[in-house]
């Protein structure tokens, strides 16, 4: 299991938004990096941008979970399947709480925040002044910080949920 934990930190999962213009790279448990097509970024409205981000995050969650489980299977030899809450009431409670878990991450300067419920719906807020500057690198950096903070919040709250015995 230790070998899995260490090797997982080197696994990258790359996801692209439905319109092909925003890319997210997750590496292991911590790295969260957004890159955006420069020409599209300058054409997009704020609404288009956040809509594509929200869809990108949903896709990324699915792909990251699949990659995590497959990597675990490969390294440990275990077979991992999606959690089946119907097996007992405890598990169902866990699944219900997990699916309603609210997490949030905010960039260091407070200009970008990402909030999610159950990691299925994402609300991305970008400060209008930051967006007005059309500084792609600044937006990407703020998204990276907010995304990293959100992932950390998700780990912390999921661990609390496990520790609480649901």
């Amino acid at each position, binding site marked *: *299991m230790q070998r899995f*934990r260490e090797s997982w930190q080197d696994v990258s999962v790359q996801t692209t938004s439905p319109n092909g213009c925003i890319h997210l790279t997750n590496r292991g*448990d911590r790295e969260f990096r957004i890159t955006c097509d420069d020409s599209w970024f300058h054409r997009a409205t704020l609404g288009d941008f956040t809509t594509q981000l929200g869809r990108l995050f949903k896709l990324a969650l699915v792909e990251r*979970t699949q990659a*995590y*489980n497959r990597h*675990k299977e490969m390294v*440990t030899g*275990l*077979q*991992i*399947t*999606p*959690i*089946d809450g119907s*097996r*007992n009431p*405890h*598990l169902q409670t*866990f699944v219900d709480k*997990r699916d309603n878990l609210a997490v949030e991450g905010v960039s260091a300067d407070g200009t970008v925040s990402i909030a999610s419920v159950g990691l299925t719906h994402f609300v991305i807020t970008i400060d209008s002044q930051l967006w007005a500057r059309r500084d792609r690198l600044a937006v990407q950096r703020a998204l990276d910080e907010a995304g990293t903070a959100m992932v950390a919040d*998700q*780990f*912390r709250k*999921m*661990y*609390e*949920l*496990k*520790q*609480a*015995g*649901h």
Partner: protein
Amino acid sequence: MVTPADLMDLQGRLMDRYNSGSWGSGFPDDPSQFGSCFNNFADVPDPSQFGQHTDALLETMTLLAPTGFDTGTSDGSGNPVTGNANTALDQVSTAGIELDDWTGQAADGFFQWSQSWKTGISNQFAAAAVLRQLLHAEAAVWTAALEDLEKLGNDAYAALEAADDEFDTGAGEISTTLKVVGAVVAVAAAVPTGGASLSILAAVGAGVTVASTGMDVYAAGQTESKKFATCCPRDVLADLMDGVRRVEDAVRDAEDAIRAQLDTNLAEIDGNWDEFCQPPPTLTSVHRNHIAAYSGLGTWGGGS
């Protein structure tokens, strides 16, 4: 090959892992079960110990074999276990013919006995083959059971690790398959009488491919899936004990099937005892006083 001692060691490691975990709540009602979950299997047979018994029965079969035979089992290297006919058996059948000058009641009795003797030996061969196959089935059951239990223990350990991991979100369950549920093997039908001994080998071979020495191969097709939650020790222990109970039930079912087959075969042998152990030839029951030498035998004193 997994031994009962391995399971005792594994449950000790499970208990240690639970004790070293950082659990908020979600404690099992009785966490000590992590350290005692396999106690019911502490004294079960070690599958490797069946080898000496099946080897001894193979030796018996070789002595009783009317023709060459294939046991339908394989050795530790996967090679078929076969045996040659014991040609010495033929000499008994023909001995009565060769005693041309022997006449009388004892001679007739011996001749008749020698003609049917080989049939009885063939039936004994069949009985030995059935017994050997039942031992194989027994070994197969315990091999599969102990392997399943080890797998359950290792998966429970991994599930505890995940539950205690702050970066594992518990979104995936660990799935495994239990083999022992398919261990109710098709072991021997009743032993045939009338010297059809070789036909039994095809019947008893069905469903069992345990190597006669290693006994590490089991090829039952039926399996059952088992899942382990990874979100808290209470659910991990519940899944572990559920798996252990399923193994216990499967072993019980398999033992019932083996015992039923053994009973069937014992009844067949009891009901046809003379077909397996013929009455001795008349000669052996003649009273000592009825056996005498010719009166003139050994009396010649030489020429005068």
